[in-house]
């Protein structure tokens, strides 16, 4: 994981023909969020390099583009409420 | 180790008592007239597997002995007026966290720098009321070099038994004068240890409410991972703002001392058996002059007695009233402008016993003849 997420390169896959199917989707979310602990500080939403999150009406992160998550770990490393856990095993 | 007979200063006797009682951690800072205690500890402790550290100030010294006590050591510091004032905030921390430790205050002239090399008893009230908030102190006061040893042992024991800081009040004269001391063998003295937890870690409450008011105490590193905080806390040691829990904690600090006051408070009476109407109340070195004065008075067929508290706090109202049953005039002799007299006022029936101050605060001791003169003066007015 690098600290400056903007430099996250696209993972070049050998067969360029069809896009690599992401492991994550709505049914298999990349992260688990403890909404009771989250204080809607907007850090994960603002800094996620893949813009996976959109704020819900409480300002808390909603995984609207789960498939774009690259498990870069920025969100859960920077979550002040310890409210995000990766589902990557 | 058979008994050794030594010629020691009061300060040195405190070191012997502390070591006998199991003190193995001392943190202090140089200040006349208590420095010999730190010096003694600096020599003794490393030889017996103990730890001595000279901290950067008295605030740090008080902090260090509390830290050491939390980590399982019996710990002590020693100071005098100015340092004792600096220690007050962390002393309050030891009270609220119920952490055993001993503070020896070798009194000198005050306030402020005052009379560094001269005697006074002007920290008497500070010893019991020095820091902020409601709390209940245990303050012991020896009157001889040998008793300095034994009351230091008792102070360490009380701190472990009641899980609280204990103050030992000496003064410049008692601290520096030399007297014969029989150093008891270890098996001749009673040494108390803090009550160990009787439950496994997950059920352990560092501040469990108990009948005696004293909770069992684990130490850091023993598998009982608990929280200690100066914030008002619940039985687990976590901060609380719940009124019921706040009151319960403060009642606990009170009950464990006040409910045991009769067991803690100790007095020495001289010539009180024939119920004299006039008596002298004094502590520490002054009580030696009082005893001498009583002897001189008795030679002149003046019926008078003397009472000496070994514990300045708690005084135990019931014991004081019993002692003062026959007494109509109580001369309170002390080296300040009236402190012990205020503490006694709260315990007695002043219609029954009149309090007569005999106060000296010029850096000199009260002499037996000065006390004798006061006795005669009081007796003259009485009849």
């Amino acid at each position, binding site marked *: 994981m690098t600290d400056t997420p903007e430099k996250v390169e696209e993972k070049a896959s050998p067969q360029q023909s069809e896009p690599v199917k992401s492991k994550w989707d709505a049914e298999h979310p990349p992260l688990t969020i403890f909404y009771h602990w989250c204080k809607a500080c907007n850090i994960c939403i603002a800094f996620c390099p893949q813009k996976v999150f959109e704020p819900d009406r409480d300002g808390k992160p909603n995984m609207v583009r789960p498939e774009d998550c690259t498990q870069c770990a920025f969100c859960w490393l*920077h979550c002040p409420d310890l*409210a995000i856990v990766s589902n990557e095993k | 180790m058979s008994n050794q007979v030594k010629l020691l200063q009061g300060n040195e006797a405190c070191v012997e008592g502390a070591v006998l009682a199991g003190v193995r951690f001392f943190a202090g800072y140089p200040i006349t007239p208590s420095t010999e205690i730190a010096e003694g500890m600096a020599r003794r402790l490393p030889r017996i597997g103990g730890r001595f550290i000279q*901290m950067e100030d008295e605030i740090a010294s008080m902090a260090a002995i509390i830290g050491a006590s939390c980590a399982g050591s019996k710990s002590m510091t020693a100071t005098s007026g100015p340092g004792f004032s600096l220690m007050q905030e962390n002393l309050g921390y030891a009270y609220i966290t119920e952490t055993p430790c001993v503070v020896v205050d070798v009194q000198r002239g005050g306030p402020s720098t005052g009379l560094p090399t001269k005697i006074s008893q002007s920290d008497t009230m500070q010893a019991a009321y020095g820091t902020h908030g409601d709390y209940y102190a245990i303050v012991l006061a020896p009157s001889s070099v040998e008793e300095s040893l034994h009351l230091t042992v008792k102070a360490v024991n009380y701190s472990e038994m009641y899980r609280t800081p204990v103050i030992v009040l000496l003064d410049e004269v008692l601290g520096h004068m030399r007297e014969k001391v029989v150093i008891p063998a270890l098996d001749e003295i009673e040494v108390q240890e803090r009550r160990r937890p009787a439950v496994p870690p997950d059920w352990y409450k560092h501040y469990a409410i108990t009948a005696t008011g004293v909770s069992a105490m684990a130490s850091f590193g023993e598998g009982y991972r608990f929280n200690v905080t100066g914030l008002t806390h619940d039985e687990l040691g976590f901060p609380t703002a719940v009124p019921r829990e706040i009151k319960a904690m403060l009642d606990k600090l009170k009950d464990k001392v006040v409910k045991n006051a009769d067991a803690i408070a100790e007095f020495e009476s001289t010539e009180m058996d024939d119920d004299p109407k006039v008596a002298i109340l004094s502590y520490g070195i002054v009580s030696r002059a009082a005893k001498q004065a009583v002897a001189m008075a008795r030679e002149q067929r003046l019926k008078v007695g003397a009472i000496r508290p070994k514990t300045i706090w708690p005084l135990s109202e019931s014991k004081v009233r019993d002692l003062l049953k026959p007494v109509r005039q109580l001369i309170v002799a002390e080296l300040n402008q009236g402190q012990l007299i205020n503490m006694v006022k709260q315990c007695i029936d002043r219609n029954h016993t009149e309090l007569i101050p005999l106060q000296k605060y010029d850096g000199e001791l009260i002499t037996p003849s000065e006390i004798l003169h006061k006795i005669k003066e009081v007796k003259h007015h009485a009849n």
Partner: protein
Amino acid sequence: MQTKSDIVHHYLRPKKKFPHVWCSGCGLGVILGSLIRSIDALQMPKDDIVVCSGIGCSSRLPVYIDFNTLHTTHGRAIAFATGVKFSNPRLKVIVVTGDGDCLAIGGNHFIHACRRNIDITVILVNNWIYGMTGGQFSPTTPTGKIGSTAPYGNIEQTFDPTKLAIAAGAAYVARSTVYHVDQLDKMIKGGLEKKGFSVVEVISNCHTYFGRLNKEGDAVEMLTWMKAHAMPIQAARKLPPEKMEGKFVTGLLHDEEKQEYCDRYAQLSEDLMKKTEARP
């Protein structure tokens, strides 16, 4: 299988109320996570770890973690920790303290603990303000900045706690921020592994007071500032001074082999006891 992301939750105290007490977006939550991951990396038993703190926002951290925790008086955590460590050197002793707690009222204890080089790791959370008491300026509030007690701008100079620590004798001194969390984990882990007095200054955001009073934005904006103004020491060494304008250096700033205080005393005590055994 524990992923790195949920190591933290295995060290939190279940009896404590979560979410924690700090403001939304406060850097202290990030530091809590970083400290726990660094401790976990040591693979030490929880029973042997003592975390002390003084008074202030940063000092509310230990109560949340399942170690021996000691929340002391304002500015005195390092003195308390000295007593814990020196009396029981087997314990790993950590202090979490703030810029006001450690450098103002606690300054005297800080420099003397550095001088003694006692094996304690200090996490010095520097958010340039007294947060708990409502935004007063502290010894690290930049000159000219506003605090509730410097309403017309702070006229005082600040000192650099890392330089202070190095000058006073600390063996290990590092700086990171709550944005550079990977680096922070490394710096804390290095401090914990170091035998001697180690200081990790962590630049943290107090947007509730410092950010608001000085119009430096919310948590996101303050983190963005940190990202833009931090310069790792390896890079900083190669840059000419004018390039370092407005930047602060992060990373491992000082790492020296020095004899540690408890070891020195234990050696002294051992020699003395051998001598007394020789002639009882």
